[in-house]
């Protein structure tokens, strides 16, 4: 580690009022292999700092603008500098980054508020928007999402009609390759997308999604509908709704859940600002830092699962003692998300803590695959043609049929044998050894 590097780092700390001077100068952290920028930690830091410097120059008019930006935003909401420090430390560890990245995460959050955004609302209930903008006591994640520089977002933008359209088209052209595209809601593809038309020109959602995603810097599908089709795509899916990744050939980062957790959205965006590319994704296109843990494994009620202590009815004794909700249909064993660690509602609760099982809303097709929500998975109907039964009912019916068949065959055999032996005994009346089977040898 050269001295010059240290000085650079120290200088950056002083520039940002929302960061503390770096006390720990041990730079020999082990670089998280999830991100693979470079093997050498110093090289990683250098590249991240260079990227942040460049973006700051682009996004802010002058030094004062840059330094006062977050302060202005947060002081409005009563978030103190200390709160913000705590939050940025939390986000750094949630992103599985070493602590040395904390001031850089803070700088990235600062830049994030000035990055051009296009936020598209497709076929859904806009629950994600609602969850972010209507929070009573927003955490820094929600505040940052409220102050991002949205150039186009139907629910909150001032322009309307042709002006709004013009705004979006202008952003796509002007900020080519730079703007962040967030898509919320499934995209109907039936009738060439005519099930969903948006704006003054009546363009289909399919067309808008394709156009805007072509030039985006990074594309985020937020919520289960945008990620996998969600409820609009539930069987029988009359509008042929699909997730965003099915209509564009660009890489899409899925942030599923219903609604998506703001921390996961901001964390992914912060990581994009830091390193300039998408975080590592799992096989379903979700960022590994947020979606690598299974709810069941991190649930605080897991001990009761192992102990065989289950809630059997709503409000029973087990429910009061916070026993496991497995028998009340908790789908935690089938769901990957970070609800149990990052939590919802201003980071204070999540379904199991509130006493209801998980419904698996961050998994594809959860409306079809996770139902019935309040019964164990073993009670779900199996999907076979002409069969309307659970696996146990159908299995037991087959078992009964097999048992009846066996009994019938046994009786048939006995009757037939008797009849035949009667015939033969009539034939060989003289044979005296007929029935002494046990006496031979």
């Amino acid at each position: 580690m050269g001295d010059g590097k240290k000085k650079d780092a120290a200088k950056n700390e002083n520039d940002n009022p929302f960061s503390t001077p770096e006390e720990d100068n041990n730079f020999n952290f082990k670089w998280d292999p999830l991100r693979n920028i470079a093997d050498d930690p110093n090289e990683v830091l250098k590249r991240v700092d260079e990227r942040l410097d460049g973006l700051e120059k682009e996004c802010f008019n002058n030094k004062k603008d840059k330094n006062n930006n977050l302060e202005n935003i947060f002081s409005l909401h009563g978030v103190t500098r200390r709160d913000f420090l705590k939050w940025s430390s939390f986000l750094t560890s949630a992103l599985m980054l070493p602590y040395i990245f904390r001031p850089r995460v803070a700088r990235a959050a600062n830049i994030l508020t000035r990055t051009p955004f296009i936020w598209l609302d497709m076929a859904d209930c806009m629950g994600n928007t609602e969850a972010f903008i209507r929070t009573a006591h927003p955490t820094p994640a929600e505040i940052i999402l409220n102050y991002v520089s949205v150039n186009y977002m139907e629910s909150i933008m001032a322009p309307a009609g042709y002006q709004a359209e013009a705004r979006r088209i202008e952003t796509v052209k002007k900020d080519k390759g730079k703007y962040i595209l967030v898509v919320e809601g499934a995209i109907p593809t039936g009738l060439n997308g005519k099930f969903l038309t948006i704006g003054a020109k009546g363009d289909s959602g399919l067309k808008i999604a394709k156009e805007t995603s072509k030039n985006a810097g990074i594309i985020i599908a937020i919520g289960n509908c945008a990620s996998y089709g969600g409820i609009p795509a539930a069987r029988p899916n009359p509008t042929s709704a699909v997730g965003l990744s099915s209509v564009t050939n660009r890489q899409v980062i899925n942030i599923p859940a219903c609604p998506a957790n703001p921390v996961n959205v901001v964390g992914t965006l912060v990581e994009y600002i830091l390193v300039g590319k998408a975080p590592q994704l799992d096989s379903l296109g979700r960022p590994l830092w947020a979606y690598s843990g299974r709810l069941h494994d991190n649930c605080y009620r897991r001990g009761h699962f192992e102990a065989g202590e289950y809630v059997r009815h709503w409000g029973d004794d087990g429910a009061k003692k916070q026993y496991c909700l497995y028998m009340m249909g908790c789908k935690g064993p089938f769901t990957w998300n970070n609800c149990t660690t990052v939590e919802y509602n201003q980071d204070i609760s999540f379904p199991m803590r509130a006493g209801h099982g998980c419904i698996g809303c961050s998994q594809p097709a959860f409306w079809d695959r996770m139902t019935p929500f309040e019964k164990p998975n073993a009670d779900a109907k199996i999907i076979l043609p002409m069969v309307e039964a659970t696996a146990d009912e159908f299995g037991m019916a087959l078992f009964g049929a097999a048992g009846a068949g066996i009994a019938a065959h046994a009786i048939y055999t006995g009757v037939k044998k008797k009849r035949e032996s009667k015939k033969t005994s009539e034939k060989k009346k003289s044979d005296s050894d007929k029935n002494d089977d046990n006496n031979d040898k």
Partner: protein
Amino acid sequence: MENKEKKYGDIQLVHRMTVIKRIIHWSFFLAVINNIVTGFYIAYPFLIFGKTPAQSDSISKGIINSGETYQAFIMTWMREFHFIGAVIIDVIFIVWLYLAFFSWKEPLYKSFIPFGDKIAEAGRMVKHYFTLKDKPETTRYQDPLNAIIFTIFHLLILLQMVTGFQMYVASFTGTSAVGGWWPWLMHFTTDWTLVVFGGLTGVTLVHLFTMWLIIIFIVYHIYTEVWRSVMWKEGDILIPFGGYKYIRNKTESE
């Protein structure tokens, strides 16, 4: 005496199951029964251990007080035994696959060659089950009908292995105590089940339903072996105990 020998035909001993195969048969039996019982519990926990103040001990209600939460861990034990049974079944499946081709005594593939003839013989066996006439001749190899049904049974076991490993690997996060290759191997071999059966919930239901098919096989298997012992008088039921059965070339009524 002569009369009797004539009546029961020429009796000839035939060695069908070696010691190894008999051990495999009964370990398989115990492991499958174990996994059916523990699997039922995991799918639908029928006992509540650990008493809450409002509950009293009742076997009929399925409540047994085994003390504090940390002492009970009934689900942990059920899953533990399920996994132990699964490991035994996996090893047995692989040994079965090996023996099906390389057994010195009675490789299974001999019951399939030549294929057309053997299928025809299996058809005759089915016919025999319902007419009680024209029993196909007993040979020193397994009869083709049993060979086909046992193969199907082992394919069901393979399906249970694949779906079971998919559920097992779900709690892994990229690595394990023995290294990253182990979850990787399970993902590599079983991730297709997620696509085919519709996610982890579908895989679970397939695992549950296949169990019923296996139970039906067990009942069928016991019935046919008893039936054969009664009807053929060749001691088929003795095979998994002593390893031998008899061949009678001439039967009583024919």
